[in-house]
C-alpha cells in the first residue's frame, strides 16, 4: 500500500501521522487521508482543490507534475511525501 507522509512542519498546525492508503493516484491517496482528517485538506490544497502554491508532493522522490489535478500515478509500494516548498521562504 502506498504511504503518505506529511512534513513535520505541518504537525505544528494539524496532526498528520503517516498513513497507508489504497490508491492509484496522488489525488486518490490524499482524498483517503482527508476523509479521516478533514482539517488537513485546507493546509495542503487550496479552495480549488489544487496543491497550494508553496507546497510540494514527491512520489518516490520525484515531484508531482500535475499540481492541479494531482493525477500522477502511484504504485502499491510508493512513498508519497507532502512537503513545504522552500519557495515559500
Amino acid at each position, binding site marked *: 500500500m502506498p504511504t503518505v507522509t506529511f*512534513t513535520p*512542519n505541518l504537525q*505544528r498546525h494539524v496532526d498528520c501521522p503517516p498513513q497507508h492508503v489504497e490508491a492509484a493516484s496522488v489525488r486518490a491517496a490524499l482524498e483517503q487521508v482527508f476523509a479521516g482528517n478533514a482539517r488537513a485538506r485546507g493546509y495542503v490544497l487550496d479552495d480549488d482543490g489544487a496543491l497550494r502554491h508553496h507546497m*510540494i508532493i*514527491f512520489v*518516490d*522522490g*520525484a*515531484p*508531482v*507534475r*500535475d*499540481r492541479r489535478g494531482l493525477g500522477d500515478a502511484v504504485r502499491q509500494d510508493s*512513498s508519497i*511525501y507532502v*512537503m*513545504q*516548498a*522552500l*519557495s515559500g*521562504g
Partner: protein
Amino acid sequence: MRTHILVGTRKGLFTIERRRKRWKIERADHLADAVSITLRDSAGEVTYAALDHGHFGAKLHRRVGKKGDWEEIGVPVYPAKPEGLLDEDSHGREIPWSLKKIWSLVPGHEEQEGRLWCGTLPGGLFRSDDAGSSWQLVESLWNHPDRKQWFGGGADWPGIHSILLHPTERERITLGVSCGGVWVTHDEGASWNVRAQGMRAAYMPPERAFDPLIQDPHCVVQCPAAPERLWAQHHNGIFRSDDGCESWVEIEDAQPSSFGFPVAVHPHDPDTAWFVPAVKDEHRVPVDAKVVVSRTTDGGKNFEVLRKGLPQEHAYDLVWRHALDVDSSGDLLAFGSTTGSLWVSEDGGDHWETVSEHLPPIACVRFAE
C-alpha cells in the same frame, strides 16, 4: 579598520559612518525603494545599489565618488528563450528567462578594473567588464542541464546569493545557490560542477536528502587567508568544507541553534566564524527571544554565545543572509535585522553597540571605505 557601513533596506540605502568612536547614520539614498544588495568597490570610489521596484522590476544604480549623483545603469538581461524550448523546473513550472531580482554583486579581482559579477533570480550569473554599464550572461551555467533541478528558496525562483572569487587561483569561482547547492568553476566560468557532497536537506524525502543539486545553502563564505576552507549556513544547519568544496561536513549541536541565514568567516583565521542563530525553519525567531551571535574559534567544535549589548528579552529580530559582515581586520562586525536594528562590534563580537533600532527591514550590510 573600515569606517563606513552600507545598509540596504526595504526603504532605502543608508550609509553609516564612524565618527568620534561612534557609529552614526550619515545619509539616506533611494529613500522608499527596496535595496536588495549594495556594493562599494575596494578603492571606495564607486557605489552600487540594486533596487527592487516590484511592479517596475529590478534596477541598478551607480554613484562615482561619495558626493556624486546616482545614475541608473544597465541591468542583467536574459536572452530570449529559444522558440520551442521547454524550460521547466523540477516542479513542472516554466522558468522565466527574465530578471526577477539582483541578489548578489561582487567586484572582480583587483587588477580586473570594472569587472563585476552578479547573481540573480531566476538563477542566472552575469558578468560586467564596464562597471555595470552592460552585462553578459554566463551561458555555460544557465545552459547546464542540472540547472533545471534548482528551485526557489525563500522566493518562487532559484537564485545565486553567494559569489566567491578565489584569492590566488584567478579562474576559480564558487557560487551558493538557493536551492541548487554549491557550484564551482576552475576556468572562470567556462564549465561548472556542483560541489555540495555532504550537505543534507531535511525538507526533501529521505531518498533525496543528500542530493547535491537540491541543497539550500543560505550563505557561503570563504576564508581569504585559507581559501580551501569554506563555511555554509544551510537551511538544515552549519556545514564546513576543508577541501575547497570537494566535500562538506555538518557541524552538529551548534548552540543555541544551527539554523540561520548569514555566516561570516574571519579573514585571517579559517577556524573562526560567526553565525546569527534562530529557531529552525518553521519559526524563524531568536531562540528564547534573545538576539545573540554564535562564534566558533576552533572550526566548529565549540560555539560561544555572544550577547553583550544585544537585546535579551522579547526580541524577534531575524537576520537575513547578506546582513552580517566582517571587515578585513576580523575585529569589526556588523549585522542588521528584519525589524530594523543595526549592531556593530569592534572586538570580534564580544561587545555590541546599537547603531539604530528604527531602520526599515534590513536586507544587506556591507563594510566600505
